[in-house]
């Protein structure tokens, strides 16, 4: 299936074969990818710039603007692209300024944006998000998560992860998360603050390395030695997850979450339930 969407088409809604992969490249506007148990579908609304190309072949959906930048302008390429697909499909979204929202997906997920904010709601599997200056806001992420930004804030409210990596230059990292036993979390910033909260009953071994940043581990003793600072949360000694923090001048805080409340365990988002 190949078609173009331009101004004259207005809004287009296309029902598709079951998708296994979604690739969206957009300059401005909105990208929404949500999981559905029903048939796959894409809705595209052209809002400016060159026409949009929508193609689907063997379960791979590709949506992008045709030939941008192109001489003579044609306005800022702007569009709304909303895709519904099976949760297991892999997703790649590249945007400049467009905001990206992904909900309920459980396969491979890659988002990249310059200044468009990224929102991930109850996604899982293998997740990577990169931005330059835009914030990454997440709730209920499970599996593996890698987030990288230059100056955006990274925020994760709840989730259960085996592998978490977050890095930024000046953006702050706020991560409230449960790490699987023997899971690892590596966070690094240049000047951004790092704040983590992990369940006390799971505990964590904390290692921190910094030029001038301070480390607080919920008032627990911090031992200096070797190549950095060491502290520990929780009593049980088996399979404590490791938290490795690295910053030049950011403040590092790791706090235990006392109640077992994990604000975003693994569940489907209310809006998709």
């Amino acid at each position, binding site marked *: 299936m190949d078609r173009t969407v331009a101004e004259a088409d207005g*809004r287009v809604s296309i029902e598709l074969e079951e998708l296994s992969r979604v690739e969206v490249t957009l300059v401005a506007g909105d990208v929404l990818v949500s999981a559905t148990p029903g048939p796959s579908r894409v809705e595209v609304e052209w809002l400016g710039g060159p026409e949009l190309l929508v193609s689907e072949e063997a379960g791979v959906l590709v949506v992008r603007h045709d030939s941008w930048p192109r001489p003579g302008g044609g306005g800022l390429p702007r569009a709304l692209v*909303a895709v*519904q697909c099976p949760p297991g499909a892999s997703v790649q979204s590249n945007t400049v300024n467009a905001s990206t929202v992904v909900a309920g997906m459980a396969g491979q997920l890659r988002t990249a944006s310059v200044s468009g904010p990224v929102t991930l709601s109850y996604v899982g599997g293998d997740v990577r998000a990169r931005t330059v200056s835009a914030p990454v*806001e997440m*709730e209920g992420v499970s599996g593996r998560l890698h987030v990288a930004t230059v100056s955006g804030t990274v925020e994760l409210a709840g989730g259960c992860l085996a592998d978490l990596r977050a890095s930024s230059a000046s953006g702050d990292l706020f991560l409230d998360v449960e790490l699987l036993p023997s899971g690892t979390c590596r966070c690094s910033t240049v000047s951004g603050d790092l704040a983590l909260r992990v369940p006390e009953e799971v505990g964590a071994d904390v290692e921190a390395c910094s030029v001038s940043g301070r480390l607080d581990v919920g008032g627990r003793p911090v031992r200096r030695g070797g190549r950095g600072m060491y502290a520990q949360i929780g009593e049980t000694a088996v399979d404590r997850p490791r938290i490795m923090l690295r910053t030049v001048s950011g403040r590092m805080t790791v706090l235990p979450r006392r109640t077992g409340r994990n604000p975003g365990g693994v569940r489907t988002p209310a*809006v998709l339930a």
Partner: protein
Amino acid sequence: MTKVFGHGGLRLFLLMLLDEQPQHGYDLIKMVEDRFLGMYTPSAGTVYPRLQSLEDEGLIEHEEIDGRKVYRLTEAGRRELDERRSELDELQRRAVESARHLAGTIREEVRGSVREMRDDLRHAMKDVKRQERWAARQARGGGWDPFGAGGLGDLFGGGARPSGGGPRRREERGRADADPGGSRLELRSLHADLDAFVDDVMARARGMVVDRAGVDRARSALLDARDAVLTALGGSTPEADRPGPDGGPGAAGPGHDPAEEDGPDHWA
């Protein structure tokens, strides 16, 4: 969500779905829901009467397959659909708008959780800092000691190093360094000492049962202390500006800099 279908809208939408392929009533409901990204689910009580009336008008017909009704479009239904194409496009547009609405809803939901988490964390970080300051003071000998390590003695002896820590204090030190000499540095050190005094008193008071009368006695003691301090600094007649138990800004003592927002009276 706001009303998705205007008058006759759902009817038209059902015709459109049946044009694609014959369906059970239940599947139609599911399909409407899917088209609107789960933002709108018509109830069976909405859909079945409409199917019935469409059938009465001869726009659709049904046949029983395995005891369930499967609806399909008639020729008249197809003509009706063609005549109302433009209205249908409008409905499709609303489906897209519901996509935007969904994106907005998800974003708001996540943003709400994230904000709550961040505030929680910030709060907890402040608690940790407060505990640390208290622990540090305990370790230094259990209280405010202006002439001990890090206190007044150090301030005047070895350059500006106010007791306590924290970013604000560091900032002050920077400013004081930039403007040495005169009464400014001395004023800073007095300020730092008063701050430390407040912290110390508050830390101790937290473990006590404090009542109204106690607070009043403390106020009176503070006023005495203020007068004594100002006298010690070589200043004004204490009795002249005694404002009564609720404190209020004291007289400008010597060296009191009006530009200084939180002068020595800020703890009163």
